[in-house]
């Protein structure tokens, strides 16, 4: 791909983000008119900001990649990512805003009046934030290496540096404007190329039957296999090979492979002829991680789908960077309206990645073999349109992808750094916030260097699972159940969130490679969420004496409209 356009596009996005962040407020709000200067953030602007912060690398790149590899089953991802806001709207949004809490630890303290539960919630915020940052950095590395052949780690380091610099310097002053800007940027960056791609597809005769059939190569195509993999062939196939197949080295030789499974060595270059069906790749046997989750999904599709649905539906409410945005709403009703608007905006955005995935199945099927399916969104414009137009559209998509990494990563870094500064590091002050920022980013950066390629959408799914099993019980029971006690909340978060965290860590480390146990660990939400709820309820019932004193008053404040408080207090 031509990097002549893409690199300036990425640079432009970075610079625009920093500039809007630093000066957006100054331009729009320096005035002597109070009614202009002190206008609260409206639901629509706030919703755009929430969506901008929420739509991460997983949404921008990952979903298209999964649809490309796995087909329409993966549409559950965008559905789940969107429906999470429905649950948030129904159960959490307005009471959370009325609680006056800024962060999740604040909520824990406001509801349960217990510093210990506050600290535990803080620890989970840090854990979820780190898990969520990891795929952002990996996605940035992937994007940059696709665009410019830079080493894998460089993109992650760039995003980390930009985010740490802007956040630590206090550059994200007008954060609502930045994030709203990022949403529209991301939407444009996917929408405009998608329109052109659909047009190109139309003029190509709109081949649509390929969605159902096994994908086939439309032209002669050379594929370089990243990690070693097993190819499963349904019928004999002739390919040109440079590298190792079935343990034998070949050099530019035509090779007839009989039906069955063949072992392809890492770095092998295969050239397929037009019309050849795309073979299936199994990666599970060698412990390569990039498809370990999908492998278990193939084994137990129903269980995996339900695990995914539960994690994404219930995990959204516990994402630290989403929760803090609700504080900006002036009151509970506005928070609800904001959530409705978010549903619309996020839903609109999620129509686009599946389009890329579907077109990718037609035009870039070899990505399933090379193990970088996440790059489909970036490669399609060049592949389908080509020329300067393709390059420009590719640059637009690349810019949008970087916007996705930057906005989500900066939101997460602020949330994690805030918790680290407030609840973990010993004393307070600006310098400690900077230290917290560096720490918040350093850990996932180091981990991304160590862990390597889990598909970004899967990695984000794991963060959702931990969030769903720790914060969802805390928020839902905290808001709707008056008998919740601090020991119950702490135990529930530890058991539910802790077990999900252990499962996620084991999965990331590549522990048990296949089998039932692997499926359980790779999709923990289905058992860890009920476990968290159950523990929280049972321990709370067992410690009835520990119900905080002001519970009734607190719950009344959560649920009554704000106008009523004034009357009751007056």
């Amino acid at each position, binding site marked *: 791909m031509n990097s002549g356009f893409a690199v300036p596009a990425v640079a432009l996005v970075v610079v625009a983000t920093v500039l809007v962040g630093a000066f957006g407020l100054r331009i729009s709000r320096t005035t002597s008119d109070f009614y202009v200067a002190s206008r609260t953030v409206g639901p629509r602007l706030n919703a755009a900001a929430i969506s901008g912060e929420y739509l991460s690398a997983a949404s921008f790149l990952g979903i298209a990649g999964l649809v490309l590899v796995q087909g329409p089953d993966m549409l559950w991802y965008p559905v789940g990512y969107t429906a999470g806001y429905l649950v948030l709207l129904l159960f959490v949004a307005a009471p959370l805003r009325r609680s006056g809490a800024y962060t999740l630890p604040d909520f824990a*303290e406001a509801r349960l009046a217990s510093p210990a539960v506050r600290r535990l919630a803080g620890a989970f915020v840090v854990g979820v934030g780190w898990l969520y940052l990891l795929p952002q950095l990996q996605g940035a590395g992937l994007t940059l290496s696709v665009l410019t052949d830079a080493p894998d780690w460089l993109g992650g380091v760039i995003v980390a540096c930009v985010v740490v610099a802007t956040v630590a310097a206090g550059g994200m002053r007008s954060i609502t404007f930045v994030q709203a800007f990022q949403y529209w940027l991301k939407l444009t960056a996917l929408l405009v190329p998608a329109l052109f791609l659909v047009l190109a597809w139309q003029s190509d005769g709109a081949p649509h039957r390929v969605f159902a059939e096994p994908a086939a190569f439309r032209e002669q195509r050379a594929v370089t296999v990243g990690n070693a993999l097993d190819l499963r062939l349904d019928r004999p196939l002739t390919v040109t090979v440079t590298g190792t197949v079935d343990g034998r080295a070949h050099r530019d030789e035509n090779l007839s492979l009989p039906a069955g499974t063949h072992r392809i060595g890492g770095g092998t270059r295969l050239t397929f002829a037009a019309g050849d069906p795309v073979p299936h790749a199994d990666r599970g046997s060698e412990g390569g991680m990039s498809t370990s989750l999908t492998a278990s999904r193939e084994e137990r599709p129903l269980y995996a789908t339900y695990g995914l649905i539960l994690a994404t539906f219930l995990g959204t409410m516990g994402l630290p960077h989403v929760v803090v945005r609700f*504080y900006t709403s002036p009151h509970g009703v506005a928070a609800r309206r904001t959530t409705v608007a978010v549903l619309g905006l996020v839903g609109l955005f999620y129509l686009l990645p599946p389009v890329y995935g579907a077109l990718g199945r037609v035009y870039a099927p070899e990505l399933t073999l090379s193990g970088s399916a996440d790059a489909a969104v970036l490669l399609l414009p060049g592949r389908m349109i080509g020329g300067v137009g393709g390059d420009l559209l590719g640059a637009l998509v690349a810019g949008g992808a970087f916007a996705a990494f930057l906005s989500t990563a900066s939101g997460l870094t602020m949330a994690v750094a805030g918790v680290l500064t407030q609840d973990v590091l010993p004393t307070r002050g600006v310098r400690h916030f900077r230290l917290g920022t560096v720490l918040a980013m350093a850990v996932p950066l180091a981990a991304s260097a160590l862990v390597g390629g889990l598909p970004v959408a899967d990695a984000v799914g794991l963060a959702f699972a931990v969030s769903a099993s720790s914060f969802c019980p805390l928020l839902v029971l905290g808001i709707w159940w008056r008998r919740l006690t601090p020991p119950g909340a702490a135990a529930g978060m530890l058991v539910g969130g802790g077990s999900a965290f252990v499962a996620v860590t084991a999965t990331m480390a590549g522990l048990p490679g296949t089998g039932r146990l692997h499926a359980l660990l790779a999709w923990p939400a289905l058992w860890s969420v009920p476990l968290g709820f159950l523990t929280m309820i049972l321990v709370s019932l067992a410690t009835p004496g520990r119900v905080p004193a002001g519970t009734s008053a607190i719950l009344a404040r959560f649920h009554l409209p704000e106008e009523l*408080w004034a009357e009751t207090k007056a």
Partner: protein
Amino acid sequence: MSGFLAGLCVAVLPLLAAGFWLGRRTARPQSLGGLGTPVEHATFQTLHTASLAAPPLRAGLTEETAGRSARRLRSLLGTDALCLTDRSTVLVWDGVGAHHRAEILERLAAARETGRGDAFALSCDTPDCPARWAVLAPLTVDDRVHGALVACAPRESAVLVRAAGEVARWVSVQLELADLDQSRTRLIEAEIRALRAQISPHFVFNSLAVIASFVRTDPERARELLLEFADFTRYSFRRHGDFTTLADELHAIDHYLALVRARFGDRLSVTLQIAPEVLPVALPFLCLQPLVENAVKHGLEGRGASAGSKSRISITAQDAGAEALVVIEDDGVGMDPALLRRILSGEVGPSGGIGLSNVDERLRQVYGDDYGLVIETAVGAGMKITARLPKYQPGVHTAGRVTKE
């Protein structure tokens, strides 16, 4: 393989944390094995038991606190049964012989009258009941009997009478401290209420004078100003709630500035830069308006009315993570830092109006000592006041007036 290692590292982290926590828990000096002679050891044990019984009682004498301290008190006295009462009921009975409650309560009524202790035999039908005799020692706070400590024993014992008396006195001291705590809390609340800003009388006079001056020449303007005045006074006289939102406070400042502008005309220019994210922040009622008033006063002071030089005031509210940062700056005469320090420490009363020290004190009381005002100034160099307001603080809620857009 590197992935596996990384996973291992991450998995080990919670273990390390748990180990650290356990270590901290167990490292506390639980047993003091080398504590010298048996007498010293016994002394330590007694003091330790007493110190464990103290914290619950510091919260006052209720069923819950009595229950939590009764067992410790009983082991301190070494009796078979111990009971704590308030003025009319048994709060807790620790040990055997709970069927003597009624009998104890009869005696309690007498002790309440006299304020003196009592030792008496218990009549009991149960053959092997070890509670045959009881000592009742009153718990007094400020010479009023608040309750009693009753210890039961199988037989008469002069030592127990003395010991029960001493323990009762010790418990009384704890209850007195609890009383003191309560009155201290009440005092702070009263202080906050008293500190709750009132608008300065000068401002009322000046505003009315300005409005009066417009009544003939520009009645429409006078009417508008009167409405501004009404809005501002309604805000500052409102009764409910000690906290407000930044948006409401800024609106009050707007009304205030409208009246000030009517008086000083073009000589005052105000710029605002307010991050919309911080408008919902809750803060103590009327704690920014005095700062603006101060800035206006300093900004206009020392400038001749005919000099034509403008005074500039800027009000900035920024979003800074979990805090809102409010900066109020003027380019007026400034102040000698030494004098300012004395004003803030309360040695010198501020000249008229509600001073900076009041705001500073209230912010510290609500948010803690880390959140006082930061003031940068020098003579002739203007003044910059920075207030940091946490977005969330337990107990800080607005009374819930929703700002209509």
